[in-house]
Structure formats: C-alpha cells, structure tokens
C-alpha cells in the first residue's frame, strides 16, 4: 500500500490511519500537537497558533487554539476508530523566533502555547510522552501512524525522532 503524507496547515488539523503519515511544515511559535492510538493505529495532528479560545472573540476556527484544537482532534480521531483511553501525545514547536530584552508578551507566545497545550492534555488525561519545544528556531514534523514516532527536522539545529 502506498504511504500518503497528509499536510496540515496553520490553524488546521487532520487524522489518518496506518500506514499513512501526517506532517506540518515550518512550525515557529505555533505548536504541533500529535496524538496517537497505538492499538488501533490511528494518528492525529493539530497545528495551533494561540493558547486559548476563551481570550478571543474570533474563535470559530477550533484548530487555531490549544484548548479547542485538542478537543476537536480527539473527536476526529474517535470518528475513524481511535479509543480515547489509548491516546498518547507528542508535541513540538513553541519557539521564540525573535529576541528582545523587553517583556513583550506577544514574543513569549510560543511558551504560552506550550503551557496551554500541556494543561489541556492533563485535563483530558492524555499522557505527554515526549516533546521538542522552545528555542529560537523553526521545526518541521512528520508523524508516522505505524508506530507513532515523530520525526523533527530543523535548519541548523539537527533532526531527531522523538
């Protein structure tokens, strides 16, 4: 069977089953959250931009926020045969691309996105098994639905599988 790699854009999510892959390219301050059900071989990826849908008026797009994005991802995975209790999470991104001395909250958005993601995962009892977050560089990630491995690629900061 041919393996498809499905691209997930900014403020977007998608799900797939083995043997296909999910990818999101050039994560900066956004966070790529991957969920995986190893029993049913179901994988999901959401590319969130902001921590919370509650702080913002324009919140129709659920995939834009950590809180609603993760909930929506779980639902979408259940629809194609995932079991909520099998889900484990891996996350990447949340970088700070530009550095300033001043205490600019906008620049710390990456860190806030990671914190909000972890809180939501905890609330939903989804175990975070690994992460590659922070720093000041971009990341591309590829999630393999055969074994749930997450490949992380950067420019000048190496590549790894988490």
């Amino acid at each position, binding site marked *: 069977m041919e393996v498809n790699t499905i691209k997930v*854009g*900014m*403020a*977007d999510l998608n799900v797939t089953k083995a043997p296909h892959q999910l990818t999101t*390219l*050039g*994560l*900066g*301050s*956004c966070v790529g959250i991957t969920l995986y059900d190893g029993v049913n071989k179901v994988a999901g990826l959401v590319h969130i*931009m*902001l921590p919370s849908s509650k702080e*913002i*008026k*324009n919140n129709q*797009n659920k995939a*834009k926020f950590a809180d609603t994005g993760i909930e929506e991802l779980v639902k979408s995975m259940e629809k194609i045969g995932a079991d909520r209790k099998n889900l484990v999470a891996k996350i990447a991104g949340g*970088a700070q*691309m*530009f*550095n*300033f001395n*001043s205490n*600019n909250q*906008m620049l710390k*958005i990456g860190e806030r996105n990671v914190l909000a993601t972890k809180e939501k995962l905890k609330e939903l009892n989804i175990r975070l098994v690994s992460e590659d977050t922070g720093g*000041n*560089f*971009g*990341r*591309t990630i590829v999630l393999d639905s055969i074994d749930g491995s997450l490949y992380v690629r950067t*420019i000048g900061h190496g590549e790894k599988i988490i």
Partner: protein
Amino acid sequence: MLDVENLNHFMIDILKELGNIGAGNAATALASLISKKVNMDVPNVRILEFKEVASVLGGEENLVVGIYFEITEDVIGNMLFVLDMDSAINFTNMLFNREKKDKELDEMDISAISEVGNILASSYANSLSSLTGLKIVISIPSISIDMAGAILSVPAIQYGHVADHALMIETIFEENQNLVTGNLFFLPNLSSFDKILTALGVN
C-alpha cells in the same frame, strides 16, 4: 491588531499609500547609502490567508531572513521585514558593491542586512509619523534566518487574535541587476490602528 477582515477598499488604499511613501523614502535612504540609483515598484498590498502566506515566500520550509522591530510611543505594535534568500544575497551585493555572490550569508552580511533593515523600517515609521502627526519610535532590530513558516508564524499569530488573514506590503527595490523583494508586515495593535485612521481623518 488591525482588523483585516473588515478593511474596506478605502483603508487598503491608505495602507498602500503609506507603503508607497514609506518605500519611496526607504529607496532614497538606500540610494544615498550606496551612492547609486535605486528604483522601486509601486508596493503591492496583499491580504492573504494564513495558509497562503508562506507560499509567497517559496513555501514553509524555504530559508528566509526576518528582521523584527517593536514600535512604541503613540503607535504600539510591531513591524517585520521578510526577504527571501535570493533577495538577501542581492541586497548584500548591492550594499557591498560586488558582483554576483551566491555563497551563504556571513556575519558581516547579516549585520549589514540588519542595519539597513533598520534604515528601511525607520523610513516607513517616519512616513507614517509625518502623515499622521503621531510619534512613532522603533526598537533596534532582531534578526532571524530560518524557515519561512516559522518566521511568518510571528505576524500570523498576531493577526490570529482578530482574523484568519494577514496583511502584507510587498515592495520591489532594484539597483542595476540586483532585485530585492521586501515583504513588510505592519502590525499595529487594534487601538493604534484606530488612532492612525483617526489621525488620517478616515474613522
């Protein structure tokens, strides 16, 4: 943050005009710096969906240069200049008056780009300031060379608070055979954008 979804044509024209005057001043500043004639095209104001933004710069994983500034005083917000690698290399060729150079940027090049980015950003800020009478101060630049998607996540997130689109002013500078396409993201916060429109008499 400026509400891109609800911009009318009139407001877009104003932004275009600001871009035009800013880029004109930037081209003049650049020309006097390198003592050569610098041409520029009329800036193109583009309103892009988040997923289209990176494709303008060659795709999410394409290596680009981002120069970021904080804006303070009467207008609060940020400004981001993005150059693709070809433009960045042409830019350094222009600055150092050299023939084609295709190798990677070195420390000296990066420092020069950052400095000139500063001059260009100041030109935009000054035009805006003289048109509106508002005091606008820009910070020292912060530079990042990385994937287009990652750098553009910064303006996208800021626009993301109110919209699903981002506004970009694209300007092409030309000196001899060196073409430089500069993409400017002007990111005033919502109350500052109102202030600018009021100062221009359009609110």
